[in-house]
């Protein structure tokens, strides 16, 4: 990682990332405060399907009423966005933006391995997003909602999900090494 100054949006000097353990401690305190104040942990993938439900509901409300999964979120006059995870989702977007702003990391670019083109990388990240969120909805939570939040509350199922995520990624890593190395 480089610490040298590069041109970014707003021309702020790019600062280095914090040390992983410091980042982890801050994240742990944030997670604890979330539990302590609200009883809920952190998450984001739930918001993705709620935004989906909103879109489906505005295009075809009848389809929502025929789909039990969507019905729970957007059936009748329920507003699918009326859930704690939605403000967390938008807060996280803004939080990421702010950290990028203050640390000079706002920049249109593509982060990728050295041996693939931008287009391949875009296609792969799109595909990865499709696969990841499909799995996240099946497991009822992603790395945040299951591994992080469930891990801290010692939920047995969340620890299983966490090891399954790492298992899946390590299992496939060798076969897609061209993407990253």
């Amino acid at each position, binding site marked *: 990682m480089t610490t040298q100054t590069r041109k970014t949006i707003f021309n702020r000097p790019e600062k280095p990332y914090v040390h992983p353990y410091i980042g982890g401690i801050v994240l742990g305190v944030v997670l604890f405060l979330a539990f302590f104040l*609200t*009883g809920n942990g952190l998450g984001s993938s739930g918001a993705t399907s709620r935004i989906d439900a909103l879109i489906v509901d505005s295009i075809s409300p009848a389809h929502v009423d025929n789909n039990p999964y969507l019905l729970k979120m957007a059936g009748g006059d329920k507003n699918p966005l009326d859930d704690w995870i939605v403000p967390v989702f938008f*807060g996280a977007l803004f939080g990421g933006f702010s950290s990028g702003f203050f640390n000079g990391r706002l920049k249109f670019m593509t982060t*990728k391995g050295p041996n693939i083109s931008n287009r391949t990388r875009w296609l792969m990240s799109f595909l990865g*997003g499709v696969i*990841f969120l499909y*799995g996240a909805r099946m497991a009822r939570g992603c790395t945040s909602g299951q591994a992080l939040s469930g891990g801290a509350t010692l939920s*047995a199922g969340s620890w299983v999900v966490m090891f399954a995520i790492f298992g899946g990624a390590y299992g496939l890593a060798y076969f897609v090494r061209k*993407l990253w190395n």
Partner: protein
Amino acid sequence: MNFPLPSLVAVSAANPWTYVLFAVIGFAFGYTLEMSGFGDSRKLAAQFYFTELTVLKVMFTAIVVAMVLLFGAVGLGLLDFSQVWVNPTYLASGIVGGLIMGVGFIVGGFCPTTSLASASTGKIDGMMFMLGGFVGAFLFGETEQYFTQWYNNAGYFGRVTLDQVFGIPLGAVVVLVVFMALFMFWGAEQLERIFGKKDLSKEPKLRPVGAMLLAAAAFAVFFIGSPSLEDKYNKLTFTRTETIEQLNADPITETKIYTADEMLSNRLVFITPAEAFKAKYNQSMNPVYLDVRSETDYNLYHIEDAVNVPAERMTEVIPVLLTEPPANTVYILMSNDEAAAVQAWKTLVASSVPNVYILEGGVNNWIAFFGNDDKALQPDPNAGDDQLGFVFPAALGSRYESCSPNPIEYESLEFEAKIKLQLKRDKSGGGCG
């Protein structure tokens, strides 16, 4: 003050600032992820080639720090763990979903929240991942109906924590997880040295101090232990709004806060047989009749649909009462008179089971009310305290007429409604779901 704060457990239009609070939490979440470097997919993918294990370090530091603080607060009685969302265990969908997520992780280079940190700082691959995420979540919604049985039932164990799985105290699990994490950090640094050619001598020298502090905190959590039921009982409060009729003015509504003992002494949790019976036909609630007497008494006579949970088995069923039933469930406890039911009430409310009430006068009063013209049931003058006050010709269980009073015959019953349905947040709405 009891945490989590009841008004904050869910966003609600009634309290618009709850949206602000959750947005602030999300802001801190996104900010931390970005400043740790999770907006860059290379940093995330490097985890799986052992060249840089930032993902593991940040994630496990966060887990153990939050875990130690959380169970420390629970042990000190500041935080009510039963009100903390614990992801329910679904083994089958959890394992398959987890493996699929792993594939998405290594192919896409992000997880959902890190893609937010990436997209919001202008990374085009992060935006593509987010976009793909909307498609993936949509596809799940469309296909869930084909495996809904499997999804909702396979390997379902409800709210289970690791201490229950291994049968050891919670504090011991906290200590073990901390030591496992410290070992993993050490291993991660060795891997970075070997595969990532990283110079460990440039790492901060304070790491061993941090590790020792963390271990000390974990041992502190272990020695603090969990608060006793008695401590929890003494901290309970109940809120009731009361309307006072005024002679020449509008009635005044007052909000009063009672302790658990005051709820008992003011008889606010005792409901008449009429109310207990009518609850069955009330669409807004789902009554569960818990008969805490011995099996012998239960076999002699019990009201229809009552479940026999003898007092000594009460603690076994509490986890089920906390997780399984719908939120509008009302528990109606009964013993022969009231003494055993009052004890059971104290145990249940101290364990944070919501909507628990006691049948006034117990089964004896039920029989006196609904069965006074049943010639087969004769009062027993020798009955002692909290014993059955009737003589039964046979152990007919719930086959006496008064066990299931005729709803038409008793259609109009007058009673002062004591049940105040308290809808705790819908547990299925927590977590990422």
